[in-house]
C-alpha cells in the first residue's frame, strides 16, 4: 500500500511545516538595532565652578587692604625620601597695589618680611639680623625677585596678585564643583577642584563671603608630588593699615645679612689677570 504511505508522509511534512510556522509566529520580532543613544558630553570645565572662582577673585581684587592668617602645611622629603610635613603660621597684611607684611611666629625660627613697593626686608628676631634689598614696584615682580634671589615663596601670595582669577585659571584643563562643606573654615564653603598640566588644586570658598578658607595643591610633575595646604582664617578686608606696618625699625639698628638662596652653589673663583711680563 504505497499510496497511503505517501499520504501519511506528506501529512507529516505538512504538520511539520505548520508547527514550524506556528513557532515562528510566536517568536518576538528580531530586535531592532539600538538607537544611537550617547550621554550628553559633560564639560571638563564647568561654568559654575569658574563662576565661584571668579567671584572670589573679584572680591579679593577689589579689596584695597587684605589681612588674614595662613596656616601652611607642605611636604618635603626627608633624606630617606619619606615625606615630612612642615607647618608655618603667617600673619599677612597686604595693601594694594604693592605693600606686604608677613609675620611668621612659628614653626621654625620666627621671621618677619616687609615689602613697601621700594624695598623688601627680612628680619629674624631670634638672632637680630636684617636683610634689605631694592625691590620692583610691581608686586608680582617683587615676589618673583624674592623667589629667584632668595627662595622666598609665600603660596598665599598667589591670590593677592592684581588679577587672581587670571592667575588661578591659567591653562585650565578641568574645573568642577565638588560640593559643599560645613566643616572647613567654620562656615559653609563651596568646594571647587581645578587643574592644569602642572598643578591640581582644590579650594574651599565661603558661600556667604566668597573668601577662600582652604587651598590644597598637588604638583604632579614635582619629585614626590608633594602636597601643600593653606588654611585661611581671620579675614579682614579694607581695614585701615598704617604705612609703618610695612617696615621695621630694625632696618636701621640691626646687623645686616644678605638675601640669598641656600641652594646657590659656591661663588666661582675670580679669574686673576695674567701677570704682566717685565
Amino acid at each position: 500500500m504505497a499510496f497511503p504511505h505517501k499520504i501519511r508522509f506528506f501529512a507529516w511534512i505538512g504538520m511539520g511545516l505548520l508547527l514550524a510556522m506556528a513557532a515562528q509566529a510566536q517568536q518576538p520580532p528580531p530586535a531592532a538595532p539600538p538607537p544611537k543613544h550617547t550621554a550628553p558630553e559633560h564639560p571638563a570645565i564647568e561654568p559654575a565652578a569658574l563662576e565661584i572662582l571668579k567671584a572670589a577673585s573679584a572680591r579679593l581684587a577689589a579689596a584695597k587692604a587684605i589681612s588674614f592668617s595662613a596656616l601652611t602645611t607642605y611636604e618635603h622629603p626627608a633624606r630617606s625620601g619619606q615625606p615630612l610635613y612642615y607647618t608655618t603660621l603667617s600673619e599677612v597684611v597686604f595693601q594694594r597695589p604693592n605693600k606686604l607684611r608677613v609675620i611668621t611666629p612659628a614653626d621654625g625660627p620666627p621671621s618677619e618680611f616687609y615689602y613697601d613697593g621700594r624695598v623688601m626686608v627680612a628680619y629674624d628676631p631670634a638672632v637680630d639680623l636684617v636683610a634689605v634689598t631694592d625691590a620692583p614696584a610691581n608686586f608680582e615682580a617683587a615676589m618673583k625677585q624674592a623667589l629667584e634671589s632668595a627662595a622666598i615663596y609665600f603660596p598665599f601670595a598667589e591670590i593677592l596678585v592684581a588679577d587672581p582669577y587670571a592667575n588661578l585659571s591659567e591653562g585650565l584643563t578641568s574645573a568642577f564643583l565638588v560640593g559643599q562643606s560645613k566643616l572647613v573654615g567654620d562656615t559653609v564653603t563651596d568646594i571647587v577642584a581645578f587643574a592644569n598640566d602642572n598643578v591640581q588644586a582644590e579650594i574651599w570658598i565661603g558661600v556667604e563671603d566668597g573668601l577662600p578658607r582652604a587651598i590644597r595643591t598637588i604638583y604632579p610633575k614635582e619629585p614626590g608630588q608633594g602636597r601643600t595646604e593653606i588654611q585661611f582664617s581671620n579675614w579682614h578686608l579694607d581695614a585701615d593699615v598704617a604705612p609703618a606696618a610695612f617696615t621695621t625699625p630694625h632696618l636701621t639698628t640691626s646687623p645686616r645679612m644678605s638675601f640669598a638662596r641656600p641652594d646657590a652653589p659656591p661663588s666661582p673663583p675670580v679669574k686673576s689677570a695674567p701677570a704682566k711680563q717685565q
Partner: protein
Amino acid sequence: MSRGEFAMSKLSIAAVVAGLMILGTGPANAWMRGGYTPSGGHWGAGGSDGHWAGSWNGHTGGGSYGTTDNGTHYATTDRGGSATASDGSWSSQSASGRTNSGTYGTTAYGTHYATGSYGGTVATNDGSWAAGRNGQYAYGNTYSGASGYGYHPPAVVNQYYGTGCYNCGGWSAGGAAAAGAVAGAAVGVAAGAAMASNAYAAGYAAGSVYAALPAGCIYTPIGAQTYYQCNGTWFTPSYGANGTYYSVVPAP
C-alpha cells in the same frame, strides 16, 4: 676613584653642558605656569657605551666619553671640542680653541656643583638645578624643566633645626653647625679664643650652609657685611628659603 665619584664627574660634565644651555631661559610669572621652560626650550642629553648625544631646541651634538687609566674623566665632541675632569678640577677646549676650566664637587649637603673660569656656575641637589653666570642665577627642576615664578615647594632651611634633625633633609639638613645656636647680638660677646688660620677648620666645607652657628662664635662685622668667626671657621648669615642660615666662607 669610587663609583660615586665617577658618577659625580659625569654629572658635573652633564651639568655644565645643561647649565650653559639653560641660561638663556627667562622666568615665568604665574602660579599655574610651573612645570615648563618659559622660553619653550627643551634640552636633553644621554649617553651609553662611551658615546653621548644631546640636543637643545633642535640643535644636536654628540661625541665620546670615558675614563682614562689614571682616573681622568673625559668627553669629546664630534666637532673637536673636549673636556676632562679629575680630582675636583675640570677643563675644556672648544672646537674653536677657546678654553675654560673650573672646579666641581659635592658639598656636605649633597649639592653637586661645578664652577667655570668666566663666572659660570651650576649645581644640582635633590632633583633641582641652579645655573648662574656673573651672579645671576636661573633655577629649575631636573624632572620637569620648570623654571621661574611658577610654584616651587618651599625650600626648607630645616625649620626644626632646634631638634638637630639630621635626617629631615632640606637645604640645611645638618641643623645647627654644632650644639649651641646663638643669637646674633650675643655672639659678639661669646668667648671664642682660638682663631685658627685655616678658614675651614673643624671640617666645615666651603659653601656649606647651616641653620645655626656653632657655639663660641664671635660677631665680626666688616664693612656692611656681617661675619662670625667660629673657632677658625668664618660664617656669614643670609636670609633665604623663608629663614636665616649661615654659609661657610673664606676668611674676609
